[in-house]
């Protein structure tokens, strides 16, 4: 029992360790030329902004793949929703809050239609969403007619490039080793980081103690503490860096909230449990009274909603709607899921690992750009990494 638990956990930590390793690797590579460009506050903010859409959509894709399906249309939905939102704001002069709500509804609606076809129409999801991918890419082009539509109101741009209370800065320093000279530090970002790290510690220790008391299986304490320490260090490090730039990006807050929400939904709710059962053995789930069609439908509607959100983020970040927005994003999202250990045959996958998988891809993209690797070589490397990650997973499973 213990050994099994260690093994499961070690696989998770392996992923986290590979992320840290690749961060160190690129930090080292950028050290000579730029003095560690990878971990500069502005670059960390960049990595977050650049990868926010992947993480947001990977949360939905996880559920789709765990349920035994795939969604290839998300990149096109990103483009289409962005185009609709941009056109409404720029040409029709609609206020952006209304446009945002409408955009999310459009995303969810597209997902719902595809979900209907997959769940009740029994058309394979690969085909339905391949169709969706072509249709919405085409509609995006028709809507924009090759034009960039923009710029947008400041409030709309803030979804992707805004910060939480950016003016709440205090002059701090100098502090030995941390700050050479007195400089402005955003206390909101730093404070939220400290609170977040503490909350994580308290919650996980309380959960552990409760499990102990209730005679439930619990992680070995050293492992738990170690994991918490690593995560706390990461949170504090990142928020410290961010607080020295402009503070906490709004999009990071959105991602964090969504990640927590989906982590809870997948592990603690009835609906989450049923999605895993559906993906693990559809017939057994059906015979246990699970309404499998409705669940599949929901995973797609949810995916569409998140793709709509990602579409808004992408448009806000570029400050314009472009015909090529979201091109091939579906591949990044699916790759993030598989690097994060989601089983291609359904039923297996964890939210946190998928987020780490997405960050892994993001850091790689960013790092390779920083060291000036050509865009085509970047693709080759990403492909190899995907194969290696899944290969290791399959190998471990067969051995284990």
């Amino acid at each position, binding site marked *: 029992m213990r050994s099994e638990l260690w093994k499961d956990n070690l696989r998770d930590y392996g992923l986290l360790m590979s992320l840290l390793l690749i961060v160190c690797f690129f930090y080292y590579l950028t050290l000579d030329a730029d003095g560690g460009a990878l971990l500069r506050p502005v670059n960390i903010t960049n990595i977050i902004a650049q990868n926010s859409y992947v993480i947001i959509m990977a949360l939905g894709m996880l559920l789709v793949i765990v349920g035994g399906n795939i969604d290839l249309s998300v990149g096109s939905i990103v483009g289409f929703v962005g185009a609709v939102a941009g056109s409404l704001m720029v040409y029709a002069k609609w206020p952006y809050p209304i446009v945002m709500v409408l955009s999310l509804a459009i995303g969810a609606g597209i997902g719902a239609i595809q979900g209907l076809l997959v769940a009740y129409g029994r058309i394979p999801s690969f085909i339905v969403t391949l169709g969706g991918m072509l249709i919405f890419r085409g509609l995006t082009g028709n809507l924009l007619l090759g034009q960039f539509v923009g710029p947008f109101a400041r409030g709309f741009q803030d979804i992707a490039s805004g910060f939480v209370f950016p003016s709440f800065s205090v002059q701090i320093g100098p502090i030995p080793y941390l700050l050479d000279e007195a400089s402005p530090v955003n206390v909101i970002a730093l404070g939220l980081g400290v609170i977040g790290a503490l909350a994580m510690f308290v919650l996980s220790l309380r959960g552990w103690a409760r499990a102990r008391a209730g005679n439930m299986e619990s992680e070995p304490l050293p492992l738990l503490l170690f994991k918490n320490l690593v995560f706390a260090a990461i949170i504090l490090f990142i928020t410290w860096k961010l607080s020295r730039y402009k503070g906490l990006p709004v999009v990071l807050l959105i991602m964090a909230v969504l990640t927590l929400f989906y982590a809870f939904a997948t592990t603690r709710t*009835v609906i989450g449990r049923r999605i895993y059962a559906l993906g693990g053995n559809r017939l057994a789930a059906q015979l246990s009274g699970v309404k499998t069609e409705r669940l599949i439908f929901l995973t797609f509607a949810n995916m569409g909603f998140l793709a709509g959100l990602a579409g808004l983020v992408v448009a806000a970040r570029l400050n314009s709607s472009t015909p090529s927005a979201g091109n091939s994003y579906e591949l990044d999202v699916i790759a993030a899921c598989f690097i994060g250990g989601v089983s291609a045959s359904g039923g297996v996958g964890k939210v946190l690992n998928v987020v780490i998988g997405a960050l892994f891809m993001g850091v790689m993209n960013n790092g390779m750009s920083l060291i000036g690797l050509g865009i085509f070589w970047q693709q080759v490397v990403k492909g190899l990494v995907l194969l290696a990650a899944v290969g290791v997973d399959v190998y471990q499973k067969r051995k284990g």
Partner: protein
Amino acid sequence: MAAILEMRGITKTFPGVTALKDVNLVVEEGEIHAICGENGAGKSTLMKVLSGVHPFGTYSGDIVYKGEVRRFASIGESEHLGLVIIHQELALAPQLSIAENIFLGNETAANGVIDWSECFRRTRELMGKVGLRESPTTLITNIGIGKQQLVEIAKALAKDVKLLILDEPTASLNEADSTALLDLLLGFKQQGMTAILISHKLNEIARVADKITIIRDGSTVETLDCHKEPISEGRIIKGMVGREMTDRYPPRQSSVGEELFRIEDWWVEHPLHSGREVIKGVSLHVRRGEVVGIAGLMGAGRTELAMSIFGRAYGRNIRGTATLEGRKLDLSTIEKAIGQGLAYVTEDRKMLGLVLTEEVRTNITLANLGGVSERGVIDNAKEVAVATRYRQALRIRTPSIYQRAINLSGGNQQKVVLSKWLFTEPKVLIMDEPTRGIDVGAKYEIYGIINELAGQGKGVIVISSEMPELLGTCDRIYVMNEGRFVDEMPAKEASQEKIMASIMRQYGAKS
């Protein structure tokens, strides 16, 4: 006549079970040799040993074929020597043509390039031999099951077969197709081919067999020579079922109460072929504390009946009424069936019963997540308590409730499935082959659980192909055949001979 095949002292064990125990079989050249036995007696295992599906080294004993001891490492080796087996489930590729199927794996090719004119020429020749009038390019999916069976035989002939083994060849055929197939077999015999025929249909065996070997519980009981003396069906049945039953079933005190559950005039159509009735006007009832068995051969429609009752999980155009405690039930979905107190413990636990990638804990609560959650959020502590309780109550042997179901033994997996259904707190449990593929000790425990459930006043319906199991656990037994209940008897008055006779009577009446 010389023996073409002699199997001497064949013993084959699987982890936990001895499937074959010192089996001896002698088949003379040019005869049709029938093998009879109950489901699970070891007939198919014996044929798998013979054909190399279970390769040399995984069994003990000798296979002497055409005068030499053979050590088949694969099915390819046995086929190479003209020993061809046709399995119960047809192994044809539905989207390929007749010609392609006949030469699948045995293509008329030179250097990997198929010679189609040669292929079609030989296909026509073989189709002529089995009396199949179709175009060689017709797809398998477009011809009926009877013709598909003929394609299988043509495929065997293409391999230059000397000893043809047919496993339940007529199980899914209608009367006319069966007769044609058996005539074909007799024709081949005239031409000197040897055949081994496994069948449940004793009237067919009586018609074509020269010798009959009876297998029971993995051992050969006897070999009857049909030419020396006329063999009656009763004689065969006696050999098949005559076994001692001592202490294989826990003692039970049955206390049967008032009527609990009733199905009236239940009709079900095949899910794909509309108009083909699979269940034909079945009525049954279960009383409180009663264990009711449904006996029958494979394909009798027992699983189809159970699944059609359980929220229409099988079939279409389902007609009939179901009542529980006098109230009419709405069984339109599985969720409703569970909600109203029905549970169906599936036959195939790996395919239908368990989510193998999930833990024991999550498997147990899957059918009643409402029982461990509040407003859609699962209470971990409650779930662990439930899983722990069933683990103890049913003595599930697992290192922990967090163990994945795939790592458990068959008997313990079955207990997890049972736990899942017990946690839904059903009033009526339908158990489909509850002890298939699990060892004797675990079987005994499952029987104990059945007794306990009946003792709590639940109604239990047990579907089983093992007749002793029904006799040992039930109060009353329905006999099912070809979608109908053909007989009903109190278990006290029932015997395996009587059940078999009820089934066979129907076959007898038809032919």
